[in-house]
């Protein structure tokens, strides 16, 4: 509010900022990733339970199997995508100091992207036997 002239009409404040035209994009992607994660999450829990008692070679072989490698990468990407969208809304709702809000939004994005890349690289290294 403080950034706007309080003697202006609301229309004057909004004019020139333009329409975002992607207002529902966040909503749609949050739900699309949710539906994907319903299946991928259950799959991951199943994989983790199936690996109980497996030695190092067996665990590597399981992750290296193309079926598991692809689904694990899908699980990682979708998880952090969904997490970023969810954490974004939580920060928007509870963090109101502008600098802290922007900093935390950026930090969440950076951590989510880096964690995704690290996880995908790890799966690829195991799958490709580097």
């Amino acid at each position, binding site marked *: 509010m403080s950034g706007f002239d309080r003697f202006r009409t609301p229309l004057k404040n909004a004019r020139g900022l333009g329409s975002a035209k992607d207002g529902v994009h966040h909503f749609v992607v949050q739900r699309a990733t949710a539906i994907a994660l319903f299946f991928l999450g259950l799959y991951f*829990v199943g994989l983790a339970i199936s690996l*109980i008692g497996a030695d190092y070679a067996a*665990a590597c072989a399981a992750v290296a199997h193309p079926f598991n490698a692809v689904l*694990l990468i899908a699980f*990682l990407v979708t998880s952090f995508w969904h997490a970023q969208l*969810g954490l974004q809304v*939580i920060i928007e709702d509870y963090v109101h100091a502008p600098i802290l809000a922007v900093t935390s939004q950026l930090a969440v994005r950076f951590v989510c992207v880096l964690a995704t890349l690290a*996880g995908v690289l790890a799966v690829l290294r195991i799958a490709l036997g580097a």
Partner: protein
Amino acid sequence: MVTSILHRATGVVLSVGSLLIVAALVALAAGPEAWACVTGLAGSWFGQLVLFGWVWTFAFHLLNGVRHLLQDAGWGYAIAQFIRNSWISVIGSFVLTALAWGLVVIRGGAL
């Protein structure tokens, strides 16, 4: 009301849990020594506590997420349905956790 804030709280916890999943995968890629560290931690009482907590957190977020998706589709908005479905999320999450942890115990993964 409670399930709504719990959905957020479990979402935050699962975000942190995802970082642990990445750490485990990186350790698996790094070699047998790092992986032994992961399995050692997972087998400790603290690791078991974290894993059990993660399973319930995931189960609740999963079931309550389905509830939210159904509500987004316009279903279950009457107050009676709303309360009933919230209870399904809560009780169902305990049932799912018991099922999953039962499998863990059967496979000899619990302490």
